[in-house]
């Protein structure tokens, strides 16, 4: 059953130089529990698509359906709650003037999750669920490492008890070892909580690690979609072949070594 479907989504921006077609007639289905990777170069419309899924950008035409309900861009808090975002840049995604806990708590207060008195406890549980100590909630983001901040970003999304997570390049700003750990965490969370991911990335090595299916975008169009296996072994579109051909060869032995290092550190 599809949790999220996009029907003929189109987004056009007006600019002094004329119309910019950011997303051109995209239809997609995301099944409950799967991880769909959206890949493409920068400027291919991935983030515009994500913003329409999240309801912070109104589509020019087309529909976003969630659990078979059409979502208007003016969403109710309950509709927002089920689709949450993890951002790319952990340096800017947390307000430097608010404590880590206050950032995680925002969703709880907005959606009225839990009794007021219990919310700090829920915040601490969310931090623990992503592998951070509960007492970190009182710290300022500046005191955290990039990987820790990214975990806070994940905790903030999870605290809202979403069904779908939109992950916008969640590992591309992290160094390799931290990247591996965050990916492992995301895989574990998906399995244990039955989450569905829309994972936006341009890193095909990451795609192989986490995605069930892949959708390839080029200049606002959905070029090709299929299971991860299909896309990597029998890419149909010329563009997909080029994209895969451009990836530096990943040595399986080296990957295993990386994982080992990540575990021991």
């Amino acid at each position, binding site marked *: 059953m599809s949790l999220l479907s996009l029907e003929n989504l189109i987004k056009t921006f007006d600019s002094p130089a004329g119309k910019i077609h950011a997303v051109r007639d995209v239809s997609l289905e995301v099944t409950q529990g799967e991880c769909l990777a959206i890949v493409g170069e920068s400027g291919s419309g991935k983030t515009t698509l994500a913003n329409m899924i*999240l*309801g*912070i950008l109104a589509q020019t035409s087309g529909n976003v359906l969630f659990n078979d309900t059409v979502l208007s861009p003016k*969403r109710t*808090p309950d509709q*927002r*709650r089920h689709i*949450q*975002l993890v*951002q*790319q*840049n952990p*340096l*800017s*995604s*947390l*307000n*430097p*003037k*608010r404590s880590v806990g206050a*950032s995680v708590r*925002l*969703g709880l207060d*907005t*959606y009225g999750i839990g009794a007021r008195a219990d919310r700090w406890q829920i915040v601490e549980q969310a931090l623990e669920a992503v592998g951070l100590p509960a007492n970190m909630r009182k710290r300022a983001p500046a005191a955290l490492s990039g990987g820790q901040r990214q975990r806070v*970003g994940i905790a*903030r999304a999870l605290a*809202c008890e979403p069904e779908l997570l939109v992950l916008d390049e969640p590992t591309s700003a992290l160094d390799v070892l931290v990247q591996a750990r965050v990916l492992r965490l995301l895989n574990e969370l998906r399995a244990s909580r039955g989450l569905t991911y829309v994972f936006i990335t341009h890193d095909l090595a990451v795609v192989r690690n986490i995605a069930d299916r892949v959708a390839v975008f080029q200049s606002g169009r959905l070029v090709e979609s299929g299971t991860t296996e299909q896309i990597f072994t029998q890419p149909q579109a010329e563009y997909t072949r080029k994209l895969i051909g451009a990836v530096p060869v990943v040595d399986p032995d080296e990957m295993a070594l990386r994982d080992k290092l990540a575990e021991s550190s």
Partner: protein
Amino acid sequence: MIRAIRILAANPLSLVGVILVALVVFAAIFAPWIAPFPTHNGAVVDFAFANKPPSARNWMGTDLVGRDLFSRILYAYQISLVLGVVVLAIAAPVGTIFGLLAGYLGGWAEAILMRIVDVFLSIPPLVLAIAMMGVLEPTLTNAMLAVTVMWWPWYARLVYAIARSEREEGYVLAAEVIGAGTAHIAFREILPNCLPAIITKMTLDMGFVIIIASSLSFLGLGVQPPTPDLGSMVAEGARYLPDSWWLTVFPGLAILIAVFGFNLMGDGLREVLGVDE
């Protein structure tokens, strides 16, 4: 706090600023106890001692009707500080609300709010205040009103510029995805990031407000005699230069000390709070 002290200590000029400001504030608060002639605050006449140069009895000399200048300067500091605090306590929040909403909301709100600000900014500040005082009665309250009206748009400008760049930050996007309201995002998320710059500007502005208020009373448009005011004391004495130099030099020095102190302290605060402009 420890970091703040260390930065201030490493920067002797801002320490001088803090000391000068502390002196001025101390003088203003304790004027009735420090002043050798507390009654000279008002309409007192003592022709026996009129227009005397500095002496052991009157450290800074006496004015044309025999009042102790030192006592009057202490009381004038009270007026200057109250005026500065009131003006900034109104101008800063009003300007901040304009700037925050214009900067965060963009679009129509930005167009309307910032054009209003531009109208005020297009009139030279002192001219605006002088024009207002020409219409209003010259009282302390009206002087505060006139200075406030010319002052708030600068806060709108400052906060607008910061809010515009902050709204592109990921934390604002995060709050929008969650669906937090405009009020929460503007006042709870963006405002805390504007505060260091606002506080620094308020400190620097204390000095400038004192100058502008003194300019108004120098022109006879501000606080009226017999209430002591640094600007009108300078104006009064200017006619008797260079013979009765103490009439202008000491009130002038008093203005200088206050303005200098607030400016140096503001520069120090800018570093402590990590504001970059």
